[in-house]
């Protein structure tokens, strides 16, 4: 038995050595790096797009635009959404699969912008360029580009529109308002809020605008997961606790989904609908604006954003450095990421027809 054991071990060891000897090329760490972007890559290469779960119309639209746009440009596309309940883990696995498949550029609309650094680093190491789409991925130096609407500007437009809207209804203050913010795990939510407060804070300090409930801290007003039911529940609770007799003049809502939930909550109490801001130009909200309920939304035309991303992908393919317009503002904790910012447009009932002229679906609603 001992002899047998010895022989087996010897055979095994020899086999392994033999295999070791003939196995050679282990990929180095070097076929990536920023220096060789000049080389570009084949025009039919795989481009991966990882988007969050299909919780809003915009992500679905973006996915369709990416699929078609990449195809038209001659690329092979792999557009993936995260599963509804397993978002982060799904997205991590999807990005890894894209790397394995040899994607040259990976566009990521992050579910949780702080939990993808390992995958982004692996992608970068494998030679893929990473473009953070709409949400800036944090905690890794391996994000190559960031493309988004100017979200601080979005917040400012929301804040301004809120003031304008309230003034139009009631010429003098003080105005009673409530604040809502987006999901705390979305980097943008903070930026929107800060933008809005940039406009609102001076008015609040003057006493012209009053946050009646006193809830002004981001953590108090953030809605986990941008969930409509979360916003509705918070609004219900605010109406009960604070607006038994008082009038509510305006609500700062970070996006349309939450705006509609807030309006729903107010309407179910038979109160007058206040001035409510929004963002994203969702179909239902545009209808609501035309009908005079929601006051404003932001048009961050997904078409423009996807088109800009595709332009960057094409530049990378050709071996050129993509155009960026902000190389200072967006620090993700590891580095300042080169960014291309697109300007958002505020839309109210007054300018809706004009603003949506390019969008066949929305344009029809404004007629």
């Amino acid at each position, binding site marked *: 038995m001992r002899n047998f054991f010895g022989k087996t071990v010897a055979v*095994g*060891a020899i086999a392994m050595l033999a295999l070791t000897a003939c196995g050679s090329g282990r990929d180095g760490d070097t076929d990536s790096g920023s220096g060789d972007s000049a080389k570009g890559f084949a025009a039919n290469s795989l481009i991966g797009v990882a988007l969050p779960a299909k919780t809003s119309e915009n992500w679905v639209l973006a996915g369709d635009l990416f699929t078609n746009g990449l195809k038209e440009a001659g690329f092979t596309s792999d557009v993936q959404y995260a599963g509804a309940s397993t978002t982060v883990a799904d997205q991590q696995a999807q990005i890894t699969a894209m790397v394995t498949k040899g994607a040259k550029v990976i566009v990521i609309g992050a579910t949780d912008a702080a939990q993808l*650094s*390992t995958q982004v680093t692996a992608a970068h190491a494998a030679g893929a360029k990473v473009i953070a789409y709409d949400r800036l991925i944090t905690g890794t130096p391996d994000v190559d580009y960031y493309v988004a609407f100017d979200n601080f500007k979005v917040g400012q437009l929301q804040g301004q529109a809120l003031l304008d809207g309230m003034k139009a209804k009631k010429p003098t203050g003080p105005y009673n308002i409530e604040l809502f913010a987006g999901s705390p*795990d979305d980097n943008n939510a903070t930026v929107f809020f800060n933008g809005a407060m940039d406009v609102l804070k001076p008015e609040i300090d003057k006493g012209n605008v009053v946050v009646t409930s006193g809830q002004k801290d981001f953590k108090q007003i*953030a809605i986990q*997961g941008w969930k409509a039911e979360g916003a509705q529940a918070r609004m219900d609770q605010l109406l009960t606790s604070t607006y038994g007799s008082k009038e509510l003049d305006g609500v700062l809502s970070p996006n349309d989904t939450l705006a509609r939930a807030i309006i729903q909550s107010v309407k179910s109490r038979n109160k007058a609908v206040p001035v409510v801001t929004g963002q994203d130009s969702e179909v239902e909200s545009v209808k609501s604006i035309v009908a005079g309920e929601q006051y404003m939304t932001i048009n961050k035309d997904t078409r423009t954003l996807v088109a800009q991303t595709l332009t960057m992908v094409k530049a990378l393919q050709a071996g050129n450095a993509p155009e960026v317009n902000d190389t200072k503002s967006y620090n993700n*904790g590891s580095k300042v990421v080169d960014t291309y910012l697109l300007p958002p447009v505020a839309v109210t009932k007054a300018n809706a027809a004009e603003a949506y002229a390019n969008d066949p679906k929305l344009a029809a609603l404004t007629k």
Partner: protein
Amino acid sequence: MSRFKDLQKNLFGGTTSNARQFGMIFTLVAIVLLFQFLTANNLGVGFGDGLTLRSDNLIALFQQNSYILILAIGMLMVIVAGHIDLSVGSVAAFTGILVAKSMADWSLPWPLAILFGLAIGAVIGAWQGFWVAYVGVPAFIVTLAGMLLWRGANQYVGNADTIPVPKGFQDIGAGFLPEVGPDTGYNNLTLLLGLAACLAVVWRELQARKTRKEMNAEPAPLWVSIFRMAVMVAVLIFVTLRFAGGRVGTSFPISGLILVALVLIYGFYTRNTAGGRHIYAVGGNSRAAELSGVKLKRVNFFVMMNMSILASLAGMIFVARSAASGPQDGLSWELDAIAAVFIGGAAVSGGIGTISGSIVGGLVMAVLNNGLQLLGVGSDRVQIIKGLVLLLAVALDVYNKSQGRFSIIGSLTRPFRRDEPSKPAPTSDTGNEPAKTTVAG
């Protein structure tokens, strides 16, 4: 009897659970090869260049799923004991946020933070074990409550923030065996690990032969032993070279190492110790176990507590790999772990199941997930397919049992076999008085 069945019996032992495992391993290999073929086909390259078995993919596969497989180990023991644990995802998330906070806010060094995390798991587990074992609340209810409780606690503590963790900590989820020694073109430590595994396989086989001899039982024929060793060593060498030959800087993942260690430890515990056997006894027939002197409460307490400790470990590994603890950690992990255990052959009613089966079950799901993603199938359709696979795997098993057969292979080869009719169990339920339930003097 077909030759094939003989071979199966010789290779994997004749008992039913082994036969079931053979079916699962066969399925796993089939799925791997299927996806290797499909991915190669998709790219229009040869079979050998398919994506599934590529180094980077295997490494990623292991790294991505180690935390689910760790959960499956604990879940197997819980399910064998006749319980269920729905709270693992929430426990993992709660531990994750506390550990991340402990390092971010109290600057706890990461090794201590890991111990801290395990301690949290132990405390949570003791809490749940107390209700299950000593109060007698069904585990389904206790852990359903735990699912809400610890999820809420996670949000309370974390304020839904995403909290990054330091580099050293990240290694338990995202790290690899380091590069040491001369440049062999491979990761040397992984090679050593593979060599050790090969030796262990050979040693175990010889040991098993020796044991059979000592039992005065016929050991499998020598050629079978050699064949079995050769197959396993060949697979191990192949896998080792894949893991060792990935991109420089990657190799066998640390989380995989933790998983392997746990599989070995718990596999040994469940198979070869009195404590492990008590778990099976309790799940098989708790009353009989109690009347054989098994301390029922202690066993139930242990499996629930152990599950939460492993859930905490899984949570930390996920946080480490994600480089941060986030509010969505742990969502629906319990379902993945439970699915792995049942696909791996455990019985819903308890008493049946193995660690290795659950790992294979988990790998079936993982390979399926990975393969479909490599093919660019969307997560919606992936979920549909996974759901169907879970249902079919268990349905096939139930069907086989009702036919008096146990192996998937058995049902595949059925039309060609001319066996003796499956004989009914002659447990004589004879014409005596109706069996009284527990006590009738």
